[in-house]
């Protein structure tokens, strides 16, 4: 039996030593000071308790035993308080302490300690103290005073609260932490199961300090194997505490039950915020509606006003218990004011740019309409000009012809000569009007060409046929030399005829005899019509100017046959409008004549086949 006592005492001392060691280890880890302090305090308390108890058993005198019993009490009063604080810190229910000055928790322990040490005078802890004789070693036997029961009740209350807090967190925390918490619970239950046995007098020895051995072992296993005190819960907490995003947990009644420092700073003005109604802190219709939906949601909200206007990206996540019951909501606010401003600025810029583009577009449209209107007016002007000039000419030419044809009476030879002069000049005026209108149409871009494949060879024959009477008057003959029957160019048939009549007409005009030779030649992309006469030719120094408007070769030979001065310029423009070219060559020696070249794009072989 005595051996058992010795083992028990040895156990007590080793427990004590273990507790001290554990407190040092935890203290040095210092991952979070407040709760590691409370855990270290718990360890120290247990050490004092067990060491004191061991010494009490070993002490042989009543005075000695009483002294160690009193030493034990330092640990006994500390343990429940340290346990409760530890449970609160560990399960992150610190906010409960903000409302209670935790010094109050120490009132009962201090009174108890005072009464223990001065029990001789007050006798409120022990009413009698004796030594047992029926045990292998003499033990301290006491009768308890009423304060002892007060203190016991207080201690049990704190133990229950602490254990309850941890038990509660088992159901509320994610499963990754549950193992640690269950371990803690078991550890917490061990000391007081021993104590209950002792108080119920089932054993002579108080096993409650021994319970701490189990507790200590389990906790230390948790420390080293499950990393109870750091990494997971603490790591998470540290992240949340240091994150710039505001973090809030609401309970079922939408009361704030947890916040991180960022949230306090942003929404609380350093107020704790814990326990406040969420809508008293942030009252936002959309957020309230989202909270009521109790679903995962993300939204952007603007809070504050003026320079304090902030935009937050808010994520609301519902929290569920392990039995999938809705239990509250987690809110994370990320300040996206800068991003929002940048986005707004960008949108504004896009808007402005769009408006500018629309305005520019409008202007262009207006300008296009103006140009269209100008075009319309130009067309109208040309049409009106043509009509208004032709109408009086109709009378001039018509009546002259009428008189010449003797509708109004006999005409003398002299009269006839002068009437012919009027008629000739009228005709010249008509040519001028036609040429000027053509020129004006070309210059105004009003001339529309209808290009199609045209057989040049056939066209030349046709033109020569219509000019034959003029040629016969001057005894000039036409010669044609074609390599093929049909040579197709891409041109406006009527305009090409006009050009041909002009060029061949000039050849006739400036020749007195001989022949006019028409040749067509073809290369890869072009057909060239060559018109060669044997007339007066063109002085070499003026050959470059004959295509200028109203330019006339001014010499005796040319003056006899004046045109409008617009025939070649119009021809040149018309040829160019048909992607062609026109030029002239002449030695300038009268009788050697001039050669005109008209080059036009041919229909490609493929197109001809097609």
């Amino acid at each position, binding site marked *: 039996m005595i051996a058992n006592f010795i083992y028990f005492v040895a156990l007590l001392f080793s427990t004590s030593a273990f507790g001290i060691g554990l407190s040092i280890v935890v203290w040095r880890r210092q991952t979070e000071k407040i709760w590691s302090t409370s855990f270290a305090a718990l360890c120290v308390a247990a050490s004092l308790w067990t060491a004191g108890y061991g010494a009490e058993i070993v002490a042989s005198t009543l005075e000695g035993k009483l002294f160690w019993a009193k030493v034990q009490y330092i640990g006994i009063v500390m343990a429940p308080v340290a346990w409760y604080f530890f449970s609160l810190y560990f399960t992150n229910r610190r906010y409960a302490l903000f409302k209670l000055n935790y010094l109050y928790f120490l009132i009962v322990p201090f009174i108890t300690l005072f009464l223990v040490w001065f029990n001789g005078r007050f006798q409120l802890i022990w009413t009698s103290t004796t030594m047992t004789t029926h045990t292998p070693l003499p033990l301290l036997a006491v009768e308890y005073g009423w304060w002892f029961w007060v203190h016991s009740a207080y201690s049990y209350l704190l133990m229950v609260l602490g254990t309850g807090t941890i038990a509660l967190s088992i159901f509320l925390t994610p499963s990754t932490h549950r193992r640690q918490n269950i371990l803690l619970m078991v550890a917490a239950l061990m000391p007081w199961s021993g104590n209950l046995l002792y108080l119920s007098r089932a054993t002579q020895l108080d096993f409650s300090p021994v319970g701490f051995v189990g507790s200590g072992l389990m906790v230390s296993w948790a420390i080293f194997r499950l990393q109870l005190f750091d990494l997971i819960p603490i790591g998470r907490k540290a992240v949340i505490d240091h994150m710039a995003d505001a973090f809030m947990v609401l309970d079922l009644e939408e009361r704030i039950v947890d916040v991180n420092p960022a949230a306090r700073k942003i929404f609380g003005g350093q107020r704790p915020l814990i326990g406040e109604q969420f809508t008293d802190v942030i009252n936002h219709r959309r957020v309230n509606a989202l909270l009521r939906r109790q679903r995962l949601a993300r939204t952007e909200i603007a809070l504050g006003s003026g320079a304090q206007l902030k935009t937050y990206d808010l994520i609301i996540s519902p929290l569920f218990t392990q039995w999938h019951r809705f239990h509250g909501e987690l809110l994370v606010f990320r300040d996206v004011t800068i991003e929002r401003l940048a986005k707004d600025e960008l949108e504004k810029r896009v808007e402005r740019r769009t408006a500018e583009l629309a305005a520019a577009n409008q202007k262009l449209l207006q300008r296009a309409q103006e140009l269209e209107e100008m075009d319309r007016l130009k067309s109208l002007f040309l049409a009106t000009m*043509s*009509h*208004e000039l032709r109408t009086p000419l*109709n*009378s001039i*030419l*018509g009546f002259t012809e009428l008189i010449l044809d003797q*509708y109004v009476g006999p005409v003398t030879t002299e009269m006839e000569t002068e009437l012919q002069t009027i008629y000739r000049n009228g005709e010249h005026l008509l040519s001028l009007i036609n040429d000027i209108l053509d020129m004006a149409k070309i210059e105004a871009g009003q001339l529309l060409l209808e290009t199609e494949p045209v057989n040049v060879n056939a066209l030349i024959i046709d033109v020569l046929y219509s000019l034959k009477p003029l040629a016969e008057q001057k005894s000039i003959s036409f010669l044609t030399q074609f390599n093929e029957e049909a040579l197709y160019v891409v041109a406006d048939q009527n305009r090409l005829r006009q050009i041909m009549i002009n060029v061949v007409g000039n050849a006739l005009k400036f020749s007195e005899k001989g022949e006019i030779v028409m040749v067509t030649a073809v290369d890869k992309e072009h057909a060239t019509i060559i018109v060669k006469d044997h007339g007066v030719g063109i002085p070499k120094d003026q050959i470059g100017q004959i295509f200028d408007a109203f330019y006339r070769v001014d010499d005796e030979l040319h003056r006899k046959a004046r045109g409008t001065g617009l025939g070649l310029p119009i021809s040149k423009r018309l040829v160019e409008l048909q992607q062609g070219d026109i030029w002239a060559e002449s030695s300038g020696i009268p009788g050697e004549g001039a050669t005109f070249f008209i080059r036009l794009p041919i229909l490609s072989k493929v197109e001809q086949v097609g």
Partner: protein
Amino acid sequence: MTHTHTILYIEDNPDNMRLIQHVLTGQNYTFYHAETGTEGLEMAKAHQPHLVLLDIHLPDIDGYEVMRLLRESHPNLPIIVITADVIQFDHAHVAQMGVRHVLTKPLRIKELLQTIKLVIGA
């Protein structure tokens, strides 16, 4: 050389009208003239001409409209258009109404007479 044919000329320019009057009466055609489109339509009804010479620019309704109304009232009446408008003249529109003869001002008398003979056969 007596023609039994009646020709109606619808033209608002008095000089041009007089010119044609001279030529046609000189050729012994029975000649009527109207200065407006509406008047022309009335004259066509009243005199039942064998041929209408029609100007396009008229003070009230234009020549195209006169042509259309004449086609309704006198489907087989030959029409020769005489116009100074060589730019905006709507050849396709006129051809659609079955009018194939268009003379431009300034007129050549011989050409006019040839065309008239061609159209009415006398």
